[in-house]
């Protein structure tokens, strides 16, 4: 037998903000490790946006070339596809909670002497970073649809993607708190994601919708995100004012057009409210 070594006695420091921050960081870090390990998923998740952009977009453009005011449909769809590309990774990231529960790892987190808020926040931030990373892979395709690279719009768009990804992950985490099977979780996600996408203006201008449907879109956080990203991406593009009015009608409250900064704030606020709900839910567990 080897010589008995004196055990190193670990003295845990008193609970404090520093400790909670370490917990947030490590939960987030795990999300990144898992994402990076699952490189196949990154590629698979890229397929859908690329299909929408280059197959659906190209196919449909033969129908709409007359109405788009000289703007390529793919250019129009690009911001919507960008928003779409972060949806599934954000949901998958949140859905890992369901897996963690099934395989027991959630218990390891829930019995730790650390606030539940730190764990939920770490999860949501991790999902935000992972989903944004996925969005970046779509972002770099911009020149292929006639949008030249420039630091200005790209920086702003990435910021908006981070906020959107965070909010989407909070929705996913809230849902994952109550659902016990991954199949059930994915079914719910599909039920939420598709209507959210269709009622957000990601694929077509909302100006074409009847009034009652347009008022529904005002309740959809994705509407604000898509509009903000589209206005950001189109900022420097040379297109006619007529096309701009049709393609980017903007979001209006009453008669007031909501500015991009407020749109982003709306998305962030929704995320924070849902986050609070998710924390409350995990506190009860």
């Amino acid at each position: 037998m080897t010589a008995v070594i004196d055990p190193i006695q670990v003295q845990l420091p008193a609970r404090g903000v520093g400790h909670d921050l370490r917990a947030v960081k490590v939960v987030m870090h795990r999300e990144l490790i898992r994402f990076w390990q699952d490189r196949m998923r990154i590629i698979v998740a890229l397929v859908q946006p690329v299909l929408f952009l280059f197959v659906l977009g190209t196919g449909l453009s033969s129908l709409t070339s007359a109405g788009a005011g000289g703007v390529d449909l793919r250019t129009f769809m690009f911001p919507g596809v960008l928003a779409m590309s972060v949806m599934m990774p954000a949901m998958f990231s949140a859905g890992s909670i369901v897996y963690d529960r099934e395989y027991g790892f959630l218990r390891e987190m829930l019995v730790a002497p650390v606030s539940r808020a730190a764990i939920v926040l770490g999860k949501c931030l991790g999902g935000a970073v992972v989903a944004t990373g996925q969005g970046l892979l779509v972002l770099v395709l911009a020149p292929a649809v006639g949008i030249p690279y420039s630091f200005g719009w790209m920086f702003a768009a990435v910021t908006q993607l981070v906020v959107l990804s965070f909010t989407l992950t909070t929705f996913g985490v809230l849902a994952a708190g109550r659902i016990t099977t991954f199949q059930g979780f994915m079914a719910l996600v599909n039920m939420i994601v598709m209507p959210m996408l269709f009622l957000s203006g990601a694929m077509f201008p909302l100006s074409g919708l009847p009034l009652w449907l347009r008022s529904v879109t005002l309740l959809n956080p994705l509407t604000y995100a898509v509009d903000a990203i589209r206005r950001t991406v189109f900022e420097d593009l040379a297109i006619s004012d007529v096309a701009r009015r049709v393609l980017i009608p903007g979001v209006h409250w009453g008669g007031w057009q909501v500015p991009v900064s407020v749109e982003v704030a709306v998305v962030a606020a929704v995320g924070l409210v849902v986050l609070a709900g998710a924390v409350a839910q995990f506190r009860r567990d």
Partner: protein
Amino acid sequence: MSPAVAVRGLVKRFDEVEAVRGIDLDVDTGEVFGFLGPNGAGKSTTISMLCTLVDPTAGSARVAGHDVRTERDDVRRNIGLVFQETTLDGYLSAEQNLRFHAELYGVPRAVLADRLRQVLEMVGLWERRKSKVITFSGGMKRRLEIARGLLHSPRVLFLDEPTVGLDPQTRSSIWEYIGQLRGREEITIFMTTHYMDEAEYCDRIAIIDNGQIIAVDTPAALKASVGKDRVQLGTADDGAAIVALRDRFGLDAAVHEGAVTFAVAEGERFVPRLFAELGVEIRSVSVARPSLDDVFMSYTGRTIRDAESGRGGIPSWMVGGIGRR
């Protein structure tokens, strides 16, 4: 110092079912304390309450000097947990799992590297620290969980069925680690098991059945309290032997594993009478001291295996008590 675990009148009710019905218990610092009973007796529910995972319906419990209801975080900082089911992330390496734990528990960075190495070496997984947990065998995973449970130097380590589902060799190696642990660290170990032979490793045992503690003592004292030895006979005619045992000695016997089996006080002294008076040819005799299984039987009227299969009320108290060692 306050006892490591102090429980008073602990009750847990789930809707209609009363899983734990008023438990009182004191576990001293440094003890290896075993909670023995069939599945469904309330062991896991009790341990869940002590670990702050489940709120008690009534009563109180203090672990490492802190109340499980009102000082939840203080309890959590002072305990290590190894559950029945694995709670590792299979896609992370052994070391990544431990680092995750260290961050969640706020282990100071200055000691982390050394402590990490120490606990991994103790369970013999230092060489495998870079491997993903998914490639580990069941025994390796359990050892890693024990290492993780110890990482933050808890005062009480809770082990819920630490060897369930493991092969005998791995089970005994897990017990070796637990034995080493007592020598090295100032730690109280509170464990549940439904393996009788494993309960023998404990300093003291509480026998629990139907949500109540029916006996608490050292394994030796509990066995001594039974007072009867187990006798097994090989005979020429088992049926006739059983009838003769009942008629002549008033003993309730049954055939188990090819031998007529019964219990009697002072077995060695009884054997000569047996040869003289049984009237059936005896080919072999063995006399054994009572096991913890017999202890459980003498308190509850059932063996642990009966209790688990939901039968109960088996005529001979020997049923299931043999062949488990």
